[in-house]
């Protein structure tokens, strides 16, 4: 589905992503973890070509990403990024309909079909009751779900998530990821999620990519990647890794200095 071939990228002098290669298969739920500055967000930006790599190539279904038009890319993949403030508030339904943009011409008004799709994805994400509210009247968790609805309205095959749970409380974090997980399982939506929260990544992801200084430190199942050795090596702090007693997935516990 997605194929990165020795991709390198730098903003100015230093390489932020160095000679990185890996594949994402259709229907996978991939987590990208790593310390601040390890290149997580940059990697996501490369994947939807907000920026283009100086070296290497990215292929989507065998097509060179650099040769695709903006709207072609937007029909293939949707991004749910950290929030930005809307300058002037739109209604929820208007925001979700923006997801139909890659399918509309410049001037075109949304058709009945676009409206149907918007209502459908709003029902999936349970924001339909707020359809007519202004976006800035909603809570953080509700706004997040509106953004997923907008992304789903793009009818994408891949969804890229950048720190999706950063601003949410634990209740909304788990709700959000349950929703993403069910979209992944039941709609075969491919998910690539960059996250700081390794415990959540461990619970939900099929494979985890651990980045260090723009390179892949390790990649594999949560059991293979989330180990005491690799986490301590990459993050340089002491942790305790055991199993989540319910799911059996690796679980990280942070240790303060005197407790060692």
């Amino acid at each position, binding site marked *: 589905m997605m194929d990165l071939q020795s991709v390198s990228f730098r903003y100015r002098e230093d390489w932020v992503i160095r000679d990185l290669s890996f594949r994402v298969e259709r229907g996978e739920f991939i987590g990208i973890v790593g310390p601040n500055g390890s290149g997580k967000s940059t990697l996501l930006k490369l994947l*939807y070509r907000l920026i283009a790599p100086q070296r290497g190539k990215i292929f989507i279904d065998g097509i060179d990403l650099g040769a695709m038009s903006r709207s072609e890319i937007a029909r293939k993949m949707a991004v749910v990024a950290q929030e930005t403030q809307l300058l002037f508030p739109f209604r929820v339904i208007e925001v979700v309909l923006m997801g139909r943009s890659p399918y509309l011409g410049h001037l075109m008004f949304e058709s009945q079909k676009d409206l149907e799709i918007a209502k459908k994805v709003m029902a999936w*994400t349970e924001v339909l009751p707020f359809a*007519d509210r202004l976006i800035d009247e909603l809570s953080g968790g509700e706004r997040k779900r509106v953004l997923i609805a907008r992304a789903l309205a793009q009818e994408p095959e891949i969804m890229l998530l950048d720190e999706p749970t950063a601003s949410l409380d634990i209740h909304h974090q788990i709700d959000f990821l349950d929703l993403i997980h069910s979209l992944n399982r039941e709609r075969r939506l491919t998910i690539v999620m960059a996250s700081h929260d390794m415990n959540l990544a461990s619970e939900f992801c099929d494979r985890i990519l651990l980045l260090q200084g723009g390179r892949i430190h390790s990649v594999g199942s949560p059991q293979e990647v989330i180990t005491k050795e690799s986490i301590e090596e990459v993050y340089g702090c002491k942790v305790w890794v055991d199993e989540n007693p319910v799911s059996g997935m690796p679980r990280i516990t942070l240790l303060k200095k005197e407790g060692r």
Partner: protein
Amino acid sequence: MTKPKIMGPLTLRDPPEAVTRIVTLGRVLLVSALLGGLLLLVMAFSVLVGSAHVNPRRSIEMMLRMLVGLPSGGTETEEAILFSIRFPRVLLAGVVGAGLSVSGAAFQALLRNPLADPYILGVSSGAAVGAISAILMGLGALSLATPLIASLGALLTILAVFYFGRQDGRIHPHTLLLAGVIIGSFLSALIMFFISISPKEELRTIIFWLMGDLSIANYRAIGVIFPYVVLGFVSLYFHARPLNLILSGEEHAVQLGVDVERLKRICYFSASLITAASVSVCGLIGFVGLIIPHSVRLLLGPDHRLLLPASGLLGASFLVASDTVARTLLAPVELPVGVITAAFGGPFFIYLLKARKVVRTI
């Protein structure tokens, strides 16, 4: 939130009643027709009043007769007042009001700044330097010399701001804003220098130009501005939907498939050209381009497919009405129209801000 029910075909048991209020072509046409009707009324009224008295009933008769191709039946003076003075002036006010409002709406989106107006990037100061030079060179008497040199100043400013406002070939709204404001202040210094060395006779002309002046209206001036306003509007309107997306941030617009750099360039040049044309002919008429787009947003929402035509039509009505007040309030003394736009526009805008809860209903 319970687990989403996403299996199988989805049946909506309770489609919410309010979901229909999105921007459709029908809604755009309806709003345009209503505001267009308002504009016609305002223009008709404006033609009937003025410092020189012409019987209103007689004026209507004359206009109707002209409309069907008959001689008007009025005296030469009456004809001159109606058709050579008031008519072009009302038309000019309409075109300029529409242009400034559309351009203001576009700049607010482009710069992602609610305080942006058509003059924020210094185009107006460039035009002013041009116009003042023309006046000081004694070219003020020639009918189109001042606007021509003013538009030259405006065009040079547009290019300079574009050149300095880019980094690595991209327009960064903040850099563009900085470049515009700085070039604008530099030009303002030039303006003050010119004013300080101006002889007394020219000073009044310059001050009136700076305050915005519709009294030079003639059909030729309208013919000069009109194509720019129409072209600028059309090219902006073709990007109305992408402009909505850029309001939520450039990265969002890219994620939704917009070629953002192209959009910003088109938006910058279209809005700047409209401003340049309007300012070159009429000087600096303030406030219209700031408050009209905001008022329309509060009434109808921020969607540019509705916002741009509605701002144009409402801005036209507003400036025609303001100019009517400016030339009749203390007749035969004429006030600068900028005084009226600010004096009436400001309080009205504050009222709209306060009444925000009840708006957005059409």
